[in-house]
């Protein structure tokens, strides 16, 4: 069974962690994945860096740039991920922008994901219409879930369409913002989260953008199947020992 599906069927309050591949050091990708699973992460989103990440705030931009400067490419990332499934059993998604995927070749990309045991992808600047026309067939052939984002401005009709098109989970942005802003659950956010909950979507939902600590994580879990932490984690592993940084970061959510 698909690892993502299995996770959502068996667990509540899912904690998913995003980190940029090849950061802080080019060879850290697998070590971070293993350390995260050991410290209790439920799911991983590994970012493949892009030179012009328009949806990201300064922290993830900087980590992407450092990773690229250190020589990260999609080709290298897939080589690093060859050993992913030796010790990592939780679901793993790749997250990044569409142009590197296009240059790698959509078919090659899907095939490489399947070979190393990647379960799904999040490509924020890949529009639904393009996905349906040029990507969906290939993604499904290799049993990759494609995760779409929705924001407080996304219309109900569009949310239902996204729900029909995806088979992993739906990524709920807490507000229309670039990554790294703090989550403030006020009345509007609550109405929005509540509206989504009441839509009874077929896919589970994960709340992302603005989750940084136990308090914001718990708030998010009240409305969704779990939450995604990116910027706060990338900041936490900037300097020092990976194992120690990961373990002390994850302790905050116990």
């Amino acid at each position, binding site marked *: 069974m698909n690892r993502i599906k299995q996770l959502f069927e068996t667990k509540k309050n899912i904690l998913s962690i995003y980190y940029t591949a090849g950061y802080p050091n080019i060879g850290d990708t697998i070590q971070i994945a293993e350390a995260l699973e050991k410290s209790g992460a439920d799911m991983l989103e590994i970012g493949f860096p892009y030179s*012009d990440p328009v949806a990201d705030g300064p922290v993830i931009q900087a980590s992407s740039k450092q990773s690229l400067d250190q020589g990260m490419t999609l080709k290298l990332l897939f080589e690093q991920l060859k050993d992913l499934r030796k010790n990592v059993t939780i679901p793993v998604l790749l997250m990044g922008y569409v142009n590197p995927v296009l*240059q790698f070749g959509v078919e090659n990309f899907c095939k490489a994901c399947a070979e190393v045991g990647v379960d799904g992808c999040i490509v924020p600047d890949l529009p639904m219409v393009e996905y349906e026309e040029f990507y969906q067939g290939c993604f499904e052939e290799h049993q990759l879930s494609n995760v779409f984002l929705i924001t407080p401005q996304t219309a109900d009709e569009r949310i239902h369409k996204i729900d029909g098109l995806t088979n992993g989970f739906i990524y709920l942005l807490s507000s229309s913002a670039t990554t790294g802003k703090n989550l403030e659950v006020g009345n509007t956010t609550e109405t929005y989260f509540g509206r989504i909950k009441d839509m009874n979507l077929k896919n589970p939902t994960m709340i992302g953008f603005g989750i940084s600590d136990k308090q914001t994580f718990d708030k998010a879990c009240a409305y969704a199947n779990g939450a995604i932490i990116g910027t706060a984690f990338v900041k936490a592993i900037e300097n020092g020992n990976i194992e120690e940084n990961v373990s002390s970061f994850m302790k905050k959510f116990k």
Partner: protein
Amino acid sequence: MKYKVNEKGYYGDFGGAYIPEMLYPNVEELRQNYLKIIDDAGFQKEFHQLLKDYVGRPSPLYLAKRYSEKYGANIFLKREDLNHTGAHKINNTIGQILLAEKLGKKRIIAETGAGQHGVATATVCALRNLECVIYMGEVDIERQAPNVARMKMLGAKVVPASSGSKTLKDATNEAMRDWINNPVDTHYIIGSVVGPHPYPDMVALFQSVISEETKRQLLEQTGNNQPDYVLACVGGGSNAMGMFYHFMDDENVKLIAVEAAGKGVSSGFSAATTYLGKEGVLHGSRSILMQTEDGQVVEPHSVSAGLDYPGIGPQHAHLFKTGRGQYVSITDEESLDAGLLLTQLEGIIPAIESAHALAYLEKMEFKGGENVVICLSGRGDKDLDTYIKYFNL
């Protein structure tokens, strides 16, 4: 119509709207409304009134006599440099600010490279009393100080883009991030025929006044509204698209787009996108862009800040791929020499961007008597420092 946008937002293989979901409502609102608003008679009246009384249109089509003698052809200059604010950029910002008002927007953001689009945006914001934030690369802020001062005088807030190469492409990224964070009350005035659909089409429509006038003026001056050649420089490509627009379907008119070769196309310091680039996605549309094998965007180089962009608009990519347009390139040095030559022969100091188009005349061969139109997209005041340094003036 075969070179125009289709109902899906594409020009052949190029275009589309590759944007994160956070931008979808803004772009969709524009897509659903832009043609309705632009085609409205009241809008057209106000737009053309402002172009006439405020911008100073129609801009002259000037037969450059001494210049024509030198090259052995009739060289007509479309004088966009005489527009208010000194370049073609204002045609688009006038159109977009009126459109933003119709959409009820209260706040305007824009990116700028050389500062010409920033100045043109700040100008129309002052004119219509709207808040204005301009994103500009740190490097460009340094090399275009007079334009930064102009924008500030006009009441705009100039925000330095300090990510990536700190130039035009990064200013564009920062403007997009601003739009993501301000999804309701803000309109983003993109300055070129780039970005997600409907921007390339919308900007082309506003700039198409250039070729609309040119056709009329050519008919008056030569008795024929079709020249043999039309030339324009291309960064993102807005003056070129405006200059080509009404000639695209006249297949006997040769369209020549001049890119910036920088220090030479093979030097590693170039912005010759069609020569160095491959198909890919940048800033919301599928086009041709300079990139690594891994799909990372490569830093361009040109002495002219307005051409220092690693991509071209999707409609240009289509004209290039179909062979309808000829895409060539001119080095930094060739453009500066051409700028000085025009100054000495005609008493017109061109922007270095426009001088790229002029420089290509050196590489053309004429039988004699051909009619050639060149878009003189901007004036050279902003480039005096560069000219002074290069020629030791």
